[in-house]
């Protein structure tokens, strides 16, 4: 019985992994990864890791996949498939060689434990009780370190992905440059000061962010962050 479940879950996990790599649309890749994660959770259950399986389904297939779906829906992804050139042939070849090498290394190692069904099962192995006990006694320091890491990552992601105010004059500047110039001259819009005075030279510069601050972006508090990008 456990062999049947193992093969179903293993084939599901490998199929999902292939789907992530092969599918053109990134949205379908995300869905394939969710399928892969659920199959992997079944494998974890077979290995008596109940808590890890539950965390896999809830944290990965739940939270992280939702994050991916949101970003794919926001960015759009596009339909680019694979790299051009030599890497397109050499990449799969490298992966195949690595797989063969790993299988030889693990199955040919002659370790007795690898060819057994594992240690004798004691009740409570992998249950939330024992995992929590280990986390709060033996592995307290990694546990706290993980919480700090998550906090740093969350703050970093917000800082990276927030809407920068320094970009706004950039967009207006581009609109101004591409607008037909004679249509503005002599209109009421120019007299009313809507059209900002544009110096002639910033058009030639490749990065107009720093030079486009003639308007409302001059006093922007975020403008110093633009140097990092």
């Amino acid at each position: 019985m456990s062999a049947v479940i193992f093969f179903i879950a293993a084939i599901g996990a490998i199929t999902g992994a292939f789907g992530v790599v092969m599918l053109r649309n990134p949205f379908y890749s995300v869905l394939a990864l969710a399928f892969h994660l659920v199959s992997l959770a079944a494998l974890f259950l077979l290995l008596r890791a109940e808590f890890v399986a539950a965390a896999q389904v809830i944290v990965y297939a739940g939270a992280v996949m939702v994050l991916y779906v949101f970003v794919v829906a926001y960015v759009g992804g596009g339909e680019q498939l694979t790299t051009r050139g030599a890497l397109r042939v050499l990449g799969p070849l490298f992966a195949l060689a690595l797989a063969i090498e790993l299988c030889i290394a693990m199955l040919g190692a002659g370790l007795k434990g690898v060819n057994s069904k594992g240690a004798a099962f004691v009740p409570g192995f992998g249950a939330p009780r024992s995992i929590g006990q280990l986390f709060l006694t033996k592995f307290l320091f990694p546990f706290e370190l993980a919480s700090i890491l998550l906090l740093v990552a969350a703050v970093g992601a917000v800082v990276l992905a927030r809407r920068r105010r320094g970009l706004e004059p950039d967009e207006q500047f581009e609109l101004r440059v591409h607008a037909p110039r004679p249509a503005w001259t002599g209109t009421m819009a120019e007299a009313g000061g809507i059209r900002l005075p544009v110096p002639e030279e910033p058009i030639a510069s490749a990065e107009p962010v720093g030079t486009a601050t003639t308007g409302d972006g001059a006093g922007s508090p975020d403008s110093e962050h633009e140097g990092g990008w």
Partner: protein
Amino acid sequence: MNIGWYLVVSAIIFCIGAGGVLVRRNPLVILLCLELMLNAANLALVAFARMWGNEDGQIFALIVMVVAAAEVTVGLGLVVAIYRRRLPIDVDELNELQG
């Protein structure tokens, strides 16, 4: 099932992920392939924990999950920032840091 079978599945998934990182160009899909590799390592860790009857490997797997979540958050933040700058979402084009 013998522990060796789980290790073989883990090796295959890791190699699929490694090949995907090499072949694909979209940074979103490259992040997904990194997830595949981390998950393969998780499977091997849990399999070894079962082999020894010791739960330390499962703790390690949980910590790997935390690190993967942090990596995904920062990576997706980078992708969103790239999209906001209207740069091409393609790792072959984003090579300005190349010396």
